[in-house]
């Protein structure tokens, strides 16, 4: 042990000695477990509660944190020189993210050049807005605003000025715009939700940056997030989905590039086993159609290709029990990346691994994916799965906050 014994060190020790006199008892292990008892909550669909859209206007500093990036990316190299918004650009604070593969590390957005992972740009995420009590369906005794440590980048508006983020732990969703403003999406107003805990990414943000694909029970809807008004909705046939309750049996939405449709995963209860199928909702005609059932054990992530003809589907053979209280998706699970033709439903596997999330490059020629064979690795590959390259090792961070989030800034 190394204990410097100079005057400064002694002063610090005296201060900490005094502080530790007030140190409380650590919670007992059994008490920790008690805090995650599954709560029973009211369905609350359509409560009609109205409140101000919470927003936090925070100055977003584009920072270069020389010390952190090499720690995050042990195989990586240098951070770029100081970066910032480009005058006259409509991308605002996102200008440095142009064309970058974007992940979250703690309270920072990290933009990685897919052609040169030795550099990275860092953008501070503003402090998260406070969360009103009515928005908290807390699964623990902790605050339902769980900080930036668990944010996942879900997707961008087509012009690259709005980024959607979900928080894995608290189940909150946010929009960050080009001014650096972070706004919480008040899902509680419509009794629906997105965000946490399915261990599956869901790109709910429409290309226009103001509409969202929402699931609540068996219903899917298009919501204008500016006032949370429902503009289009439809319901899956309850006879086909008996016993579906609560949120989360419809998830992993992804919008068509023209913003007229979104695809999603719906889960049937087949003899106690979750049976996922992929559906497409046409918001203009309010019609639903199901793609051919490929027999996936589980589906983790969908991403609609930029040219509109294919869905990228991350799925695996592992079948999950319908109401199992233990989610194997919290751990490394074998999955493949499937390319599914939207019209015919024909699919083919383009990559095998332990993938948890993926995003298309703006031109549709490449795919960025997070592989989780035990640690987290960011990969890029061609759209047919060839030329796989590991961009960076994303391990080493205290939280496993990267397991469902990767996005690719749409501006070239």
């Amino acid at each position: 042990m190394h204990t410097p014994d100079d005057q400064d060190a002694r002063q610090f020790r005296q201060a900490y000695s005094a502080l530790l006199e007030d140190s409380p008892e650590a919670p007992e292990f059994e008490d920790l477990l008690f805090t995650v008892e599954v709560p029973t909550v009211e369905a609350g669909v359509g409560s009609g509660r109205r409140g101000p859209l919470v927003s936090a206007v925070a100055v977003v500093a584009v920072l270069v944190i020389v010390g952190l990036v090499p720690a995050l990316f042990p195989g990586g190299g240098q951070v770029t020189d100081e970066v910032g918004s480009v005058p006259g650009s409509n991308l605002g604070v996102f200008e440095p993210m142009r064309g970058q593969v974007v992940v979250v590390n703690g309270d920072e957005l990290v933009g990685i050049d897919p052609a040169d992972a030795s550099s990275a740009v860092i953008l501070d995420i503003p402090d998260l807005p406070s969360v009103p009590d009515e928005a908290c369906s807390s699964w623990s005794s902790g605050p339902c605003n769980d900080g930036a440590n668990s944010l996942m980048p879900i997707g961008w508006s087509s012009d690259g000025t709005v980024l959607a983020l979900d928080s894995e732990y608290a189940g909150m969703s946010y929009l960050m715009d080009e001014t650096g403003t972070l706004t919480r999406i008040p899902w509680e107003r419509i009794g629906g939700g997105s965000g946490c805990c399915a261990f599956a990414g869901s790109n709910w943000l429409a290309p226009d940056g103001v509409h969202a694909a929402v699931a609540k029970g068996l219903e899917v809807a298009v919501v204008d997030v500016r006032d949370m008004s429902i503009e289009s909705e439809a319901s899956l046939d309850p006879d086909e989905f008996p016993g579906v309750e609560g949120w989360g049996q419809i998830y992993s939405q992804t919008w068509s590039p023209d913003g007229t449709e979104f695809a999603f995963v719906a889960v049937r209860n087949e003899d106690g086993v979750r049976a996922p199928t992929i559906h497409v909702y046409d918001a203009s005609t309010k019609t639903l159609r199901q793609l051919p059932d490929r027999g996936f054990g589980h589906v983790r992530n969908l991403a609609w290709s930029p040219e509109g003809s294919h869905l990228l589907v991350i799925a695996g053979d592992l079948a999950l029990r319908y109401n199992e209280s233990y989610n194997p998706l919290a751990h490394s699970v074998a999955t493949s990346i499937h390319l599914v033709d939207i019209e015919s439903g024909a699919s083919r596997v383009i990559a095998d691994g332990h993938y948890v999330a993926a995003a298309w490059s703006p031109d549709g020629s490449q795919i960025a994916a997070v592989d989780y064979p035990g640690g987290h690795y960011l990969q890029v590959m061609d759209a047919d799965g060839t030329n796989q390259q590991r961009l960076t090792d994303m391990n080493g961070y205290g939280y496993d906050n990267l397991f469902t989030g990767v996005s690719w800034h749409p501006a070239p």
Partner: protein
Amino acid sequence: VVSVQPFWCLERGLIVTASDAQVYAEVKDDLIGYATVLVGPDSAPDIVSTVVLRVLVRRRLADLDDPRSYLFRGVLNEARTVARQHRRLAVLSDRESGEDSPNLLPEVAVAVAGLPVQQRAATFLVYWMGFTIEQTAVLMNVRVGTVKRYLSLAREKLREALHAHA
């Protein structure tokens, strides 16, 4: 009103083992002390609970290669979040007079209370817990040079405080 259990709540179920409890028992006192120094006694239990639970929903404590380091990093990350929310931490508010700690100069208490979380973490790990700078870098998940910078900045602030009150 239909009472339902949201899917994502069910997904929060845990499987833990006796070995997880044993691992926690071995590190809990260090964790609570670390959290107390970083955010104060009121928030420390919540931070420890939050961090440990976040690990448990994903993996077993006993499966971690180095549970202490992993959890220390988690406590620091969570403390940063709490510090952001509260900005001005009053962890030494009732100690600032130094009345209860005759060896503690009030200006030292104030200076330490005003340190950013990461500088406080670095000084606590090195000067109180006795970790080397290299070990501290691992615990904080930063580079060795960053730890040195935190220590230098913290010492500089301490000296400024002492000088101002000289």
